[in-house]
């Protein structure tokens, strides 16, 4: 018998034994999650892509004819306006979240760790109370004869009630209330990791605090900033219950538009094409994120 043959025989033997020993456990352990991800995540998403190229039939169902009309429809000025406004408000929310969240995250990160944990907990607790109820509170405060207007009237700051509700501004406030914790957490994590000796070195080399902040602190906490941007921008973009609770019907964003296509007017193919657009924007953000993160990986580590 030549040696290579015996080697081959051994290999097949090992293979069958391996099969017996590994396949069954692998199937029971990795099987459920694989099944779940395929059936509940990947296939439905592919189906969304698929029907975005279909037509709507007369009864709100799907007519299986390939068409690009759904994507052409998006280009109508009415919808472009909604998309543009959604992006604008989401961006505004993101920027304000970072501007408010960064100093607070910095404040928390510079506290002793026990106190910092408590302060972070305080940031998270509102997140555990129903978001909608909180939005409703803002709604109540902002009513024409609500608490805020009453207060301003009595203080003599205004002569007639302000139109606080149903504006873009109040929608942004609502988005801020629901998104701020998501900005603060990653910012805190990256600031907390920042080695204090970098700041000392910068100061030692003659940089004033403002310069140190711009040239050392910001660049070194960039991953946290980008993560915060992602965590605020993407949900803000697809959000529909905030405009619904605070904007009445007057502030129409892409999220509400998609929801209406599915739950009200039953134009699923058009709704699908809108959500594909949303996905594309998300993917662009993700791509930017990985680019920055990768840059970071390569050059910092």
């Amino acid at each position, binding site marked *: 018998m030549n040696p290579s043959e015996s080697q081959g025989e051994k290999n097949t033997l090992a293979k069958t034994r391996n099969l017996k020993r590994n396949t069954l456990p692998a199937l029971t*352990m*990795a099987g459920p*999650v694989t099944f779940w991800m395929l059936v*509940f*995540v990947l296939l439905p998403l592919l189906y969304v892509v698929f029907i975005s190229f279909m037509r709507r039939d007369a009864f709100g169902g799907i007519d299986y004819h390939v068409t690009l009309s759904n994507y052409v429809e998006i280009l109508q000025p009415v919808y472009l306006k909604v998309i543009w406004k959604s992006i604008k408000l989401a961006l505004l929310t993101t920027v304000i979240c970072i501007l408010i969240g960064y100093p607070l995250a910095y404040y928390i990160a510079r506290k002793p760790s026990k106190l910092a944990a408590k302060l972070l907990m305080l940031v998270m607790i509102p997140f555990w109370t*129903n978001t909608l109820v909180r939005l409703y509170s803002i709604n*109540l405060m902002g009513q024409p004869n609500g608490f805020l207007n009453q207060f301003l009237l009595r203080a003599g700051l205004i002569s007639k009630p302000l139109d606080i509700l149903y504006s873009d501004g109040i929608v942004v406030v609502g988005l801020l209330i629901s998104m701020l914790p998501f900005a603060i957490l990653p910012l805190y994590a990256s600031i907390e990791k920042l080695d204090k000796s970098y700041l000392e070195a910068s100061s030692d080399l003659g940089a004033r605090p403002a310069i140190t902040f711009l040239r050392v602190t910001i660049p070194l906490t960039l991953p946290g900033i980008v993560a915060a941007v992602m965590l605020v921008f*993407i949900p803000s973009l697809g959000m529909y*219950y905030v405009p619904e609770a605070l904007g009445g019907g007057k502030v129409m964003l892409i999220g509400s538009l998609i929801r209406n296509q599915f739950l009200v007017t039953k134009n699923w193919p058009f709704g699908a094409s809108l959500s594909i657009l949303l996905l594309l924007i*998300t993917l662009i953000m993700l791509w930017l994120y990985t680019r920055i993160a990768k840059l970071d990986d390569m050059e910092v580590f």
Partner: protein
Amino acid sequence: MASRKRKQKRMLFKSLSNLYAVLVYGFLYAPIAVMMVFSFNDQKVNYYWNGFTLKWYVKLFTDSSIVEYLWNSLFIAGMATLGSVVIGTIGAVGLIRFEFRLKKLVNHSLYIPIVIPEIVLGLSLLLLFEVIRLPLGFTAIILSHITFCVPFVIIIMRGRLSGMDLSVEEASMDLGANRMVTFFRVTLPMLVPGIMSGAFMSFTLSIDDVIISNFVSGPYSTTFPVKILSLVKTGLSPEVNALTTIMIAVILLGLLINSTVQAFIRKRFLTHIKSYF
């Protein structure tokens, strides 16, 4: 000694930053405070203060359909947590331990529910249930919640597993335990902290979810947040404020008890250990 000027500057900065923190926390807590105050307001339309009352609390417990929706939410969150923890824990171990053809695909797809807008996941699940003709309702909601909780559980478990010394498993098998026994008697107990935080995460995500539940809940069975969403437009009745106030009180109490419980356990544990030496 640092000069007075330098000290004053620092004190000023410190008080300014304290003020800033108070303002931001105020912004986060103002809606909650308003809601709590109005739960005691003797006025159906909650625009201004009209005297103290407990009648909303009474109404909440005597005749209100709201509590029913809360029970729905708790039931759904419980089931979703159970499902996602079982699938996620076993799956996390399986994905680390075994090599198979779809592994990369599964690993990547785990991030999809986390990063894509919730609304897209919601509508794709709606389409799925439509295609497989699963009636919308509790089952659909639970399946959907498991879908977005499993990735979080797996990511938490992975963090736990990667920091774990896997040679104890080999030791177990070396001592004659088969895979099954090893998993239940060695691996699982080591994963308990990860399972706990995964369960906590799942429960939180599930009970607060609006968007996905909104898509897959039928007209008859719905969750607490979705019910509130439908009520927000017409105006919430003050017993919702009362209910949410109670919920916050429970959460705060839970946090308080949690730390005391932990301290208690630690103390017991320490005396337990000390008694051996």
